[in-house]
């Protein structure tokens, strides 16, 4: 969902300026920009209650995975996603251990065969907004295929 307690009014105002739309090559058929579209949200049909099969199959096919959670988010909390990860049934390579950025605990991590699960300490749902440097280091480690 859209971030309920975050004020995106200034961004909406900016992205609906005529000069901004022009700079971004926006087609005239496109409507007013809103952060979240009510029509799409209300008519969207959710099929999958769990993505276990898709995630498992992708990892088995050799695709590397990172599942990360800001640990103070209530909407998609870390605990539920941690249970999801454990339920995938892949053997773990490391125990659940802290990982660090600038000598500070950035969160906790567990490496599995083919993928990694990490928390980002003190972050909510939008991790790159709440903990930008930690998020940056995290995605760097992932893209480079390095352990946390």
């Amino acid at each position: 969902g859209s971030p309920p307690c975050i004020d995106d009014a200034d961004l909406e105002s900016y992205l609906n300026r005529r000069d901004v739309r022009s700079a971004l090559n926006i087609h005239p058929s496109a409507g007013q920009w809103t952060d979240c579209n009510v029509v799409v949200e209300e008519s969207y049909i959710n099929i999958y209650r769990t993505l276990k099969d898709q995630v498992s199959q992708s990892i088995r096919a050799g695709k590397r995975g990172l599942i990360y959670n800001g640990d103070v988010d209530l909407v998609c909390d870390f605990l539920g996603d941690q249970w999801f990860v454990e339920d995938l049934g892949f053997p773990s390579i490391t125990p659940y251990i802290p990982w660090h950025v600038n000598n500070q605990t950035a969160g906790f991590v567990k490496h599995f065969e083919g993928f990694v699960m990490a928390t980002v300490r003190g972050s909510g749902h939008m991790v790159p907004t709440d903990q930008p440097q930690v998020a940056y280091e995290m995605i760097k480690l992932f893209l480079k295929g390095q352990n946390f």
Partner: protein
Amino acid sequence: AFDEDRVVRLPGQTKDIPFGMYSGYLNGSDGTHLHYVFVESTGNPATDPLLLWLNGGPGCSSMLGFFTEQGPFRVTKTGASIEPNPFAWNQLASMIFLESPAGVGYSYNDNGNYTIDDDGASYNNLQAIKSFFIKFPQFKRNDFYLSGESYAGVYIPTLSIRLLNETSINYKGFAIGNGYLDQVKLGNSKVFFSYYHGLIDRDQWSALTSQCCSNGVGEDSCEFVQSSNPTCTKLVGKLTEAIESSGLNPYNIYDRCQTNNDLRRTTSLSSPGIGRKYGNHKHASAWKLIKATLTGHSDHDIEIVPRSTRTNSQLKGS
């Protein structure tokens, strides 16, 4: 590079953008046109990985990611200028921010059809990726990754499965942040999370666990979402109401909630439609996801009481 889509400078910037930036449309199926912004890596675009980012919702725009999360720019509070983001991910990878499905952000459909499901969304996302590589064939050999957050926990795995069959794309892996990966697990965990973070007291917790758990208290022995015990279901319903009325920012329980600002905007804007967007819809949207996991129902089954229809005393209380 696809020069028609090139963005040299955005309003609010005083200098040209020092890396390749492109904005335009990628084609999905049946008249679907998905808006994208592509920013090249500031390292070596020829060899750095290519990373797709999707925000969730469903229905939310990846321009939120671009301008408020890991994109290269931030819009200042007044909206008058653009600032660089020192932790932009395009220092590591070239990034595609895709507004999906049609109807989200600047994306549209020629027929005005905005009803879609998970499979339709992932199919259109795949078509958009293929459309990207037609516009930018020089990136076809780069390592390609998927990423996103929230409901992208559905978008990414379903798209990943489709990519497994696309041998012409150098697909390497995926990253999912705070993903909507399993409704029932997230519903059950939310009760534990709420207790562990002091959102409910010991009496409520004892009542919940005595009615919803068997053989101890834990992930495997507690079933809050799909309980066959009506007392348990009732207690979970009360918990849902309690955390909703707490006034907490559900996306970060330790951050402040800009509700007051939202309400001020609601009352200060002349158009009720705009006011509803700033004030109520956002709340309804977030709590919808929470309720969906806690009750085990899909979003469509859940009736949300918009904030504006609550009484003044309820608002003051929260």
